[in-house]
């Protein structure tokens, strides 16, 4: 039994926007795997809800004419993992969201919810950062796009303006074509857990597979919001693909990550694991890109 003041079920995206305008205090609910938990904890007790869960138009993955991959915000984790387009172009995202919680959570949880709640540990978020994802938002003024790095403002806060809902996540062709990636979730157990640290890497190798043409490294829980390791990426670009260079790139991430001490893990521990994960993810990404180390 949940303590809610009212539940409004949207019938279309426009209807959702209208409902949010009418009920400015309302909380958007999709799968509910975060919102219902918070209500039960008393944090959002007595809240008004606008449910967008029925909006099937926001489900599914499509390849647009220009090669952009469009992931509807209500697509569940399990559907993303099993989607043939995801598997073909950015399989690492499917692998990443397959590490969320357990099967029931992956069936109900949506990628839109995972990004809109603004937590640094979200398994989709670091991988979406690594792919330079673009967030599509629909509101009273229509549709606007924002790069995912700008979407995250601070811990628990994203750039979702009044009466806006997230309607899609876009990955441009230039972001994924020629890249191969790997995600490592470091958690305290092998299921039903949130990441202590997450590292998602993708690389583009030269034609002969000997040089890193591009390196993208993204982290969850290395700071208050998911982030890119820009110094390490910069250090990696143009380097030869060698074990020593992977070590070098991995060591550089300390210039980027800013984990904190908490009872969950110490800063020193998280920094150590940041390096370990980066190196391991890079090695795997290189193999997947057809290179060798």
């Amino acid at each position: 039994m949940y303590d809610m003041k009212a539940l409004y079920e949207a019938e279309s995206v426009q209807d959702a926007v209208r409902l949010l305008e009418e009920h400015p205090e309302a909380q958007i609910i999709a799968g509910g795997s975060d919102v219902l938990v918070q209500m039960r904890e008393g944090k959002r007790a007595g809240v008004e809800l606008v449910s967008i869960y029925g909006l099937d138009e926001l489900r599914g993955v499509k390849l647009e004419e220009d090669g952009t991959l469009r992931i509807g915000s209500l697509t569940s984790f399990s559907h993303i993992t099993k989607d043939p387009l995801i598997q073909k172009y950015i399989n690492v995202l499917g692998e990443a969201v397959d590490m969320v919680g357990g099967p029931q959570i992956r069936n109900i949880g949506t990628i839109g919810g995972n990004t809109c709640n603004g937590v640094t540990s979200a398994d989709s978020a670091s991988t979406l950062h690594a792919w330079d994802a673009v967030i599509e938002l629909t509101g009273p003024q229509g549709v606007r796009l924002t790069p995912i790095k700008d979407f995250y403002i601070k811990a628990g806060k994203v750039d979702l303006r009044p009466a806006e809902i997230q309607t899609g996540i876009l990955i441009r062709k230039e972001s994924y074509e020629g890249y191969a990636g790997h995600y490592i979730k470091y958690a305290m157990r092998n299921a039903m857990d949130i990441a202590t640290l997450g590292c998602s890497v993708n690389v583009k190798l030269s034609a002969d597979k000997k040089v890193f043409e591009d390196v993208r490294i993204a982290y969850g829980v290395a700071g208050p919001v998911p982030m890119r390791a820009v110094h390490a990426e910069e250090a990696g670009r143009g380097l030869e693909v060698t074990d020593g260079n992977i070590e070098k790139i991995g060591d550089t991430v300390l210039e980027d990550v800013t984990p904190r001490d908490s009872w969950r893990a110490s800063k020193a521990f998280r920094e150590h694991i940041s390096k370990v994960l980066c190196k391991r993810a890079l090695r795997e990404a290189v193999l997947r890109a057809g290179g060798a180390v």
Partner: protein
Amino acid sequence: MKEKNGVIGKSVKRVDAFEKVTGRAKYTDDLCDRNAYVAKVLHSTIAHGYVKSIDTAEAEKIPGVVRIVTCFDVPKNYFPTAGHPWSTEPAHQDVADRLLLTDHVRYYGDDVAAVVAENEVAAAQAVRALKVEYEELPFVLDVHKAMEDGAPQLHEKYPNNILAHTSIRNGDYENAIKEPGLKKVEGWYQTPTVQHCHIENPVCYAYMEQGRVVVVSSTQIPHICRRVVGQALGIPWGQVRIIKPYIGGGFGNKQDVLYEPLCAYLSTVVGGRTVKLEIPREETFSSTRVRHAIHFHIVSYVREDGTYAARKFESFSDQGAYASHGHSIAAKGMGCFPQLYPCPNIEADTYTVFTNKAASGAMRGYGIPQAMFAMESHTDDVARALGVSPYEFRMKNVMPKGFTDGFSKNVNYYDTFRECMEKGRKEFGYDKRLEKYAHQTGEIRRGVGMAVFWYNTGVWPISLETSACRMVLNQDGSIQVQVGETEIGQGADTAFAQMAADTVGIPFEMVHVVSTQDTDITPFGTGAYASRQTYMAGFSIRQTGELLKAKIIETACELTRQMKENLDVVDGNIVRTTDGDILMSLGELATEKLYSLTNNGHLTAESSYQIKNNAYSFGCTFVEVEVDIPGCRAQVTDILNVHDCGQLINPALAEAQVHGGMSMGIGYALSEKLLYDERTGRPLNNNLLDYKLSTFMDHPDLQASFIENYEPTSAYGTKALGEPPTCSPAPAIRNAILQATGVALNEIPMRPHLLFDEFKKAELI
């Protein structure tokens, strides 16, 4: 006792399998009236202090709120909560230190008020709207600090917060350590606070009927619960009726009386209406019971030839805020020290100490998983110091056949430890793995380890052991069986049915075990704990079954005119043993007897049996781990438990029991720890996300193996298996990590945080 064609020793299907698999089995919440009032508890948000006032004005205004009860309203009947049999000698009674609600708060999460409302939402809103004013006192979370002079005092009668201190002195330790040429091995070992994490949270509902209070509860101990509810409410025990339906696990947490007294009281203040009190998971962690965290110190003086000259043991057990099961846990752990590796010169001391944390109570293994972590880690340390194989060192020193414990009179009738170790060594391929992993380098390394465990069966002679049974014959020759020992998921009802079937001489399918215990109806029994169910219930089932069988034979004599010496009940028929002829079915006999106009009777039997025996139950764990050194993680890649729990009543259920215990042992070793905030005393991870209970993705396939040495003191040759499987995995895993990395971890859980620190110290990373 094993019938030739009987069902004992066979893996028959659980009697409750279909009910549980189809979801038809009724648990407490399924049975509760949908119109019941809902209660919620307000817990303290300080670790130590006094409630000065509680402002209920805002809460009372919330629609649906029926009644608010604060710590100032409840009767001052101090009661004990431990699920121990009552003792009529005051000196042996449990400490009575609880009230239904308290103004003297002793831990963060203590119970200070309760709300009764028409629904859950109103109850939750009202709890949030209560305003409590506290007078805060300093608090203490660490056992050693709690023992210091000037430390915050939790209870008046216990100076330095010491609930109890007991000792063992055998031989002359001080003199023995002077022997020349001895090697000294010393270690400190720490085990964590963990929680049971049964699937079904504590839940009960109470109502009044004909002036009495009825409580339906998810408890392991209905008859004990009746006594404690009576004590807490200050009413005669016969005024209380406890009903225990199916329960979703307990592991010892429900071997304490938790919220049944409060729920019963709340019903009495709302005119006897049904009040349901379900404790959410967060509160189950923060405010029910936990396993005692224990800090151990062991010193061994050992000769070059690998024998012990003298040994010292100290332990400091974290009781938390209330006595609950108290010193029994630490004392049990110390008690096995002189037995496991007998040594003539022993000095042992154990302290149980109050701290401002959740009360520690019973949990699967009752002090032995803690003690085994310390003792069996230490055993490997000693073997390493001597440069001998840990396996051979154990073979040399572990309790021999024929060992008799002076206090319990337990006898090691077989060379159980060595038989289990030999079996495990062979089945696990221990030697090959030991050699293979002896000299490894690189980031990912494997290691193999082992540990043995000591256990026993039931609580005799420390406490009462008794069981009672009733059997009732139906017209069709089937029977109902009732015992006070409870089904808590372990399969006890099935084992009881197997015993009854063989003793009476009827097919398994014709035994109907009444799963629900109802203290108005069920014969007296103390419940599920101490791994006592099959062993203890066995005595009264055997005795009652034979009584019933004697009555059946007597009736058969009347009906068939044969002498009783020539009659037997076999497979549900009356058989003349001289020629094997079936004279009539038991159904025919029962129907004739029940409806006879000349010699009518209802065949039933009932008896109770006091057990003045206990039985050793030993075994061991073999384990292989993979350690990711830079990743600071250890993972179990293979694990085998070997047990000698006597004759197996149901091998499939026994195996399942071992799997569950091993799973609990893996979590204990690698991931589980309830954390408290040093600054406030608040539990930090009291939910199933942040508390890292291991999942089956964290386990390899779990293997169980058995030695079936028939237990001579037992009614059916069986003995303890409920708790033993969880006792030895943790030290075995620790010893495997030691083999893999050379790093001796003396603390559990061996989670990444610890591995990071220790690998750094060892310069592995």
